[in-house]
């Protein structure tokens, strides 16, 4: 009995699917009995194609993480979960590179079927999604954004329509300020969503504390806000935006400590409708973002 046969005999008694694949050529070198019974004999074929149904090496392929710079085994065992669309099962994969008795570097993968466990998890995730969707729906029906207590999109849209009409009728001035928290995604990624939510709430409080009662604050999207400022010309809106920018920059945020925001400003012209007004504020914000953030756009 060769060493290779010993390996194979060992793998055959393990009650999970096991296959070996060449690290370089992706060819399946061996499958244990259990896996052959389930999937048929795929030895000699490319693992990504025959096992996972992919035309190219899988995006989630762990091979590069199992070998060192000389493409020899680095002795790491990597455990991951993957969904296999060929047999519609979820697997926990235990993968490691080894040197096969003929000197080649091969990977062995032990695949534990975790479909039942996953089903429970997935049902939970779908329930989470249903809840989030319901929340959004309720939000649509109410005037305020549940999280920040700023006006929601629907309400601020309506407010803007009213203000644009009023400004025009009485030939007054109206400006809007748009702001977007800089590098917000990093907060969520680094500290989690609860911290992200906290930053949003704190920013809303700063704005509320530093604007007039006649100004209306709305949450425009994820981390983007809009302030509708009646009786405010462009230069006053700039002053106001600059003041808010500074307040945010100087604020001691609870967990992330420092955070900045970029601002865009626009004033209503006789040719404007709500849409073009917002578009110009958005362009101004875009300018601020593209010129280093933490500033007010032109």
């Amino acid at each position, binding site marked *: 009995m060769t060493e290779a046969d010993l390996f194979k005999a060992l793998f055959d008694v393990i009650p999970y699917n096991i296959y070996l694949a060449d690290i370089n050529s992706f060819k399946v070198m061996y499958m244990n009995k259990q896996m052959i019974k389930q999937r048929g004999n795929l030895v000699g074929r490319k693992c990504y194609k025959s096992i996972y149904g992919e035309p190219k090496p899988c995006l989630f392929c762990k091979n590069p993480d199992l070998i060192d710079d000389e493409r020899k085994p680095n002795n790491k065992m990597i455990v991951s979960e993957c969904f296999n669309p060929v047999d*519609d099962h*979820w697997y926990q994969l235990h993968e490691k590179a080894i040197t096969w008795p003929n000197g080649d570097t091969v990977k062995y993968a032990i695949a534990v079927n975790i479909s039942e466990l996953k089903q429970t998890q997935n049902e939970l995730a779908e329930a989470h999604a249903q809840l989030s969707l319901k929340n959004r729906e309720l939000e649509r029906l109410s005037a305020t954004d549940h999280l920040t207590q700023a006006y929601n999109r629907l309400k601020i849209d309506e407010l803007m329509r009213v203000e644009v009409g009023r400004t025009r009728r009485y030939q007054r001035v109206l400006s809007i300020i748009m702001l977007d928290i800089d590098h917000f995604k990093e907060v969520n990624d680094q500290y989690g*969503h609860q911290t992200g939510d906290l930053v949003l709430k704190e920013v809303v409080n700063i704005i509320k504390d530093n604007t007039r009662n006649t100004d209306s604050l709305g949450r425009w999207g*994820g981390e983007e806000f809009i302030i509708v400022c009646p009786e405010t010309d462009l230069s006053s809106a700039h002053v106001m935006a600059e003041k808010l920018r500074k307040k945010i920059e100087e604020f001691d945020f609870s967990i992330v400590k420092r955070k900045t925001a970029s601002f865009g400003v626009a004033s209503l012209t006789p040719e404007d409708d709500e849409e073009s007004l917002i578009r110009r504020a958005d362009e101004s914000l875009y300018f601020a973002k593209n010129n280093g953030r933490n500033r007010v756009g032109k």
Partner: protein
Amino acid sequence: MRSLNILVVDDSQLTTKKIAQMLISMGHEMVAFARTGEEAIKQYIKHKPDMVTMDITMPDMDGIEATKRILQENPDALIMMVTSHGQEGMVFDAIEAGAKGYLLKPLQMEKLKANINEIYEKYGDKQ
């Protein structure tokens, strides 16, 4: 419900094929498919489908980003996620980005059907 034109976005050919078959058996049509986020945006603009099924893990941009980008230009787009990612954060991000549904793989035909019907009843053909 009328027959819908649906754009299927998934980097796995096999999954795309499976979804297409399910859609056909429900009386809908896969009007186009895309394997990357960029392609998804292009195909959306080209076909203006009634609905989109969107994977999350793709080679270039992820499906949540693609969802945001499509919705930016087309606020009425109806997009549902069909993914293998069940982490709570991911679910939250997708819904926040504007996804109207979230289904996990393995995709079950009854669930897909129920989701399409629900989304269509709530948001479809309003214009």
